[in-house]
Structure formats: C-alpha cells, structure tokens
C-alpha cells in the first residue's frame, strides 16, 4: 500500500476510535450529549481522512483500492460510514451510531493490518501486549458468564410468572426487573472488555505474524461472535430488546463464545511466523 495513504488510514482509525469510546460509554453508562458531539465530529473528520487515504492509494496505483481483503475491508468501512452520515444528516438517525461506530472502527483496523507494521522493539512489550489481550478477554468472559447465568434465571422466573403460579416455586428468585437490570449491566461490561480485547488481540497478531491468520476459520468465528454481540447490544439500546427473546439471544451468544474459546486453543502455532 502507498506509504502516505497508510498514514492517512491510521489517522482515520484513531479518529474512529473516539466514536468507539462514545459507544462504550453509552453501553456501560448512559448517553452523554457532549461526548456524542465530539465523537461525531471526530468520526466525520475520520471519514474525510479515510477517503483521502483510499483516493490517494487508488491514484497511486491507478486502480480502485479494493485489490485484496484488507483494502476491501477498508473500503467497506468507508462506505458504511458514508451511508451512516447520510442517514444521520437526512433523518437524524443517530441511534445507529451505537452499531456503526464500532463496526467502522474494527473494519478500518482490519484494513490497516494489510500493511506491514514495525516489528516488536522489545520482547517484553510483546508479552505485556498479549497479557493485556488475555486479561481483557477474561474479564469480558466473566461478565458474559454472569449474564448467561442471569438469563437462565430470567427465563425460569419469566416462565413462572407467565404460568401464573409464582410463590409455588420452592426457590425464591429475585424479581424479574432486578434480573433484567443485572443481565444488561453484565452484558454491557462484557461487551466493552471483549471489544477492547479484540482490538488488542488483532493488533498483537498482526505485528507478531503479519496478516495470513485473518482468514483462518478460527479467527473468523471470533469476529462473528463479536459481531453477534454488537448486534445484541445495538438492538437492546435502540429497539429496547429485552425479555425472553433477548435472554435466548444471550444464551446463543454464550454458546458462540464457548466455541470461540475452544477455537482459540492452538492458535499459537498459527501465529508462528
């Protein structure tokens, strides 16, 4: 990839990351207007820089910058970002940001991985970086585990209340409203940590092992699990997804996460150069 356009792409990724911060804050706490405005400004600037990067690269090679997987991911991210800006400008559809900001950031990050990075300067830094990835994912999984247990309890409790025989149950579970609150709180925290760990993990892997791993099915499973997570959180925040169906979705997500976990064993050999 053309050298200058890589720099532009990285600047765009940094700008998009502000959008990501806004989303993570929204997920764990509540929306803040000021943060959103800053994030939106950064995001719009990011789109411009991103476009510059792609145009520059296309001009330099006299071909549309969609030659390989990484360039396609980057282009895809730009198109999604442009579509979102249009919808936002035309219809004020800002709740979509919860979905679009992380997606665009991750796609841009993947696109950027296509160009080789500087090797590790210090092996201790490399190990620490990996430790951060593992630590984040473990915290994320702990929260996800709590959410899973809570959704099972939610389903049991909901069934009791719908069957109109509460009190008859021998165990006294917490109220449905409490379970719902705990479930989404745990799920939100899990989302934040897992998103950060995906970023940490993919950055580590690209520095360590270049880019050949990205199409490995095991990695694809992880990214799809994260995407499912994003979808669930997005629909909860915007469409008020909750109740029985949402609890079932959380169980599906827990299943995918178990598969991801299992797939990750043995990844080290894949990442060896």
């Amino acid at each position: 990839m053309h050298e200058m356009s890589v720099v532009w792409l990285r600047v765009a990724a940094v700008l998009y990351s502000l959008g990501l911060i806004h989303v993570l804050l929204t997920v764990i706490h509540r929306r803040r207007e000021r943060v959103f405005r800053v994030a939106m400004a950064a995001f719009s600037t990011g789109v411009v820089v991103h476009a510059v990067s792609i145009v520059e690269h296309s001009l330099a090679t006299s071909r549309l910058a969609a030659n390989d997987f990484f360039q396609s991911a980057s282009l895809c991210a730009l198109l999604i970002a442009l579509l979102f800006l249009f919808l936002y400008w035309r219809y004020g559809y800002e709740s979509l940001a919860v979905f679009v900001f992380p997606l665009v950031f991750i796609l841009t990050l993947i696109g950027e991985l296509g160009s080789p990075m500087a090797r590790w300067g210090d092996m201790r830094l490399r190990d620490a970086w990996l430790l951060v990835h593992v630590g984040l994912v473990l915290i994320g999984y702990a929260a996800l585990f709590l959410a899973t247990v809570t959704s099972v309890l939610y389903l049991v409790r909901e069934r009791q209340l719908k069957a109109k025989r509460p009190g008859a149950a021998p165990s006294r579970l917490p109220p449905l409203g409490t379970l719902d609150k705990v479930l989404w709180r745990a799920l939100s925290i899990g989302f934040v940590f897992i998103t950060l760990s995906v970023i940490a993990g993919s950055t580590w892997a690209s520095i360590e092992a270049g880019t050949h791993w990205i199409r490995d099915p095991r990695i694809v499973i992880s990214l799809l699990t994260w995407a499912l997570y994003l979808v669930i959180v997005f629909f909860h925040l915007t469409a008020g997804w909750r109740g029985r169906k949402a609890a079932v979705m959380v169980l599906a997500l827990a299943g995918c996460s178990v598969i991801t976990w299992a797939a990750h064993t043995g990844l080290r050999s894949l990442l060896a150069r």
Partner: protein
Amino acid sequence: MRLFITGLNHRTAPVEVRERLAFDHHSLGPALGELVAGSGVLEGVILSTCNRVEVAVTVENGCDPQAAVDEFLSRSRKVPLDQIAPHLYHVQDEEAIRHLFRVAASLDSMLVGEPQILGQLKSAYAAAKAHGAVSGLLELILTRAFGVAKRVRSETGIGESAISVSYAAVELAREIFGSLADKQVMIVGAGKMSELAARHLRRSGATRIFVTNRTHERAREMAAAFEGTLVEYDRFLDTLPEMDIVITSSGAPHYLLNKSQARRIIEASKNRPMFLIDIAVPRNIEPAVNEIDNIFLYDIDDLQRVVEVNVGERRKRAEQAEQIIALEVERMVARLKAREVAPTIVSLQERLEEMRQAELARLRGKLGPLTPQQEEAIESLTRGLIGKIAHGPISELRRQAAQPEGIRFIEAIRKAFRLED
C-alpha cells in the same frame, strides 16, 4: 400469683355479641381501673379488637377470678351475663400463657399471620401501663409475648405471602418490577378492589397514579380519592405505553384491550415490562394478551389461585409457629418457677442451722463444762457466722429470681449447699 384470661373471639361469638362487648378508646381507662380494683386482682389488661375481646388478669394465690371477671364484663359493658356467658372462654396459667403467645403471633387470628394483632396487643399493654394496671408477672409475660411474636414472624415468615386478592396483585407487581418506586399505574373503571390495590401500590412506592372512567364525573371522584391524575376515557389507550401497571375493573361488556392493540403498546414502550391486572367480570382484556413477550396479564381467577397457594403455605408455616410457641411456653413456665425462690431460701437456712447444731454437738464433749456466759458466747458466735454466710446467697437469690436465667443460679445454690428437693 396466677394468670387468668377470659375472652371471646370470632370463632366463639358472632359479631352481634362482639360489638356489644368491645371497649372503645374512651371506656378503656375507667374499665382498667375498675378491673384492678376487684378483690385479689393484682394486674389487668384489656384487649379489644373487631375480632376479639379478652381480659387478662393476675391474681393472688387462692383467689379464683373467673366469676369476678365475668361479672366485670357484664357490668362494665352493660350486657346481661347469661347472654355472653355461652361465648366466653377461660384459660389459666400455662394455657393462658400459650393463648397469649398464640394471639400475639397471630396464630389465633381470622387471617392467620395478619400483622395488625401484634400492634393492637401492644397498644392494649400501653394503655394498661399508662393506667398503672400492669407491673409484675403480667408485664413479664406480655413483653415476652411480643418477643415470641417477632421470633415467629422472622423464623417462619408467616406474614410474607399475600392472602388477599388486592395484596396479591401488589406482591406480583413486586416480583415483576422489584421496586415499585417511580412506576406508573393506570386504573380503568371504579371498584372496591381496584381502589384497595391502588392504595397498596401507593403505599409500596408507586405514587404516579392515573385514573379513567367512562363517566367523567365518576372519574373525577376517583382521581380525588386516589390522588391520581385524570385521563380522558377515549384517549386512555394512547397513554398505556407510558404505564407499568394497569388495573381494569370497568363494566364494559367487551374487551377494552385486545391482543393487537397490546402488541402495538408494547412496541411503542420499547418492550418495557407491563403488568396488567384485569379484575373485571366480564373481563376487560383479551386473555391472549398474556402470550405477548414482556406483558404479564392476571385476571381475577389467577389472583385467587395465587391467594389459595399462599393460604396453604401459611397453614404449613403456622405448624412451625406452633412448635416455636410450645418451646417458648415451656421456657416461660420455667422462668416463672424460678421466681418462686422462697422454698429455696427456707431450706438453705434450715440446712445451715442443721450444720451448726451438728458441729456444736460434736465439740461439746471436748470443751468440757461451760459457764452460761461462755455458752451464750458460742451460741452467738456460731449464729452470727451462719447468718453472715447465708446473707450473700439469700439476697442474690432474691435478686436473681426476676432474671431470665435465674433458675440456673437457684440450681447452683441448691447443689452447692446440698439442698434436697
């Protein structure tokens, strides 16, 4: 000293009799004075509620207060004795303690486990205390009865589940939402039951209440009664997406809310859980609404079933409660026995005197002949000695007698001085 209870309750007497015997706030004071003025009566308490009238007295030994208390009731309430006598029950001593404990723990109530009786008993005690009618044994037993009631309540959880339809609705709301603070309630149609439910909900923290009714006038009355906000009847469906709890009891002959309307409402409210309570007959809400995710619909029969389950549960807990009471009565009786220390003191004095005499007799041979003055000196020396030895234990016995664990001390003294039973 002995304890007697005379009374009648919802099981032994119809309301026509109970209402004639009831003491109101004003007549209680003079009646208490009259009660303890009776011969041999040491203390008295009068408990008067809508379901029972009971008189508890402690009397001196050898005095039978049954006739006197019956007479007192008849005289003070101006009811001929032969009209109330068939409805009265009499219990004494251990049985009276058991009765008092059961009443306090709400095991003798019409709605077993209802919490009001304890408060009523406490105010009966407060009234007696204020008029100087309790001071000793009765006070001891009454305060223990409050403790027993508290123990029964916390250990068996007998009062936890709702046994009335309106309260069951509130309990269900708590199971769905957890806290009811800030929850919005809509009441459609007037009625005794919806009024009760609204009152319970308000007490549980759901302070934002909206009311609507087909006739505007009635709706305005309801709004005033519930301290609620009036909503026009023809637009109440539009406000439902903002509501958390809806109580319907309208006389409408058709459904006010069908499944497709409910589905639109839950979508508009972004799937916020909703609790619908339909106590109207014929029903106001289509039963299939319960199939929608995040909506919980209970009709009058569903609530009644919840109540039945709870009543059964309460019966089981009442059995546990009876065991606790049996244990507590046993303890109380032992404690009262401990109060009776007089026999122990007498035998302690006898035992020491016996020892003194025996020692004197043993030494007399060795001492040889003594002058009357010497005789007197030895007598006063030994008497003084046992008097001093006995003084500590005896005054401590008297003091410990009133303490809960006094019986242990008495036993220890009996063992230490080898006192026979």
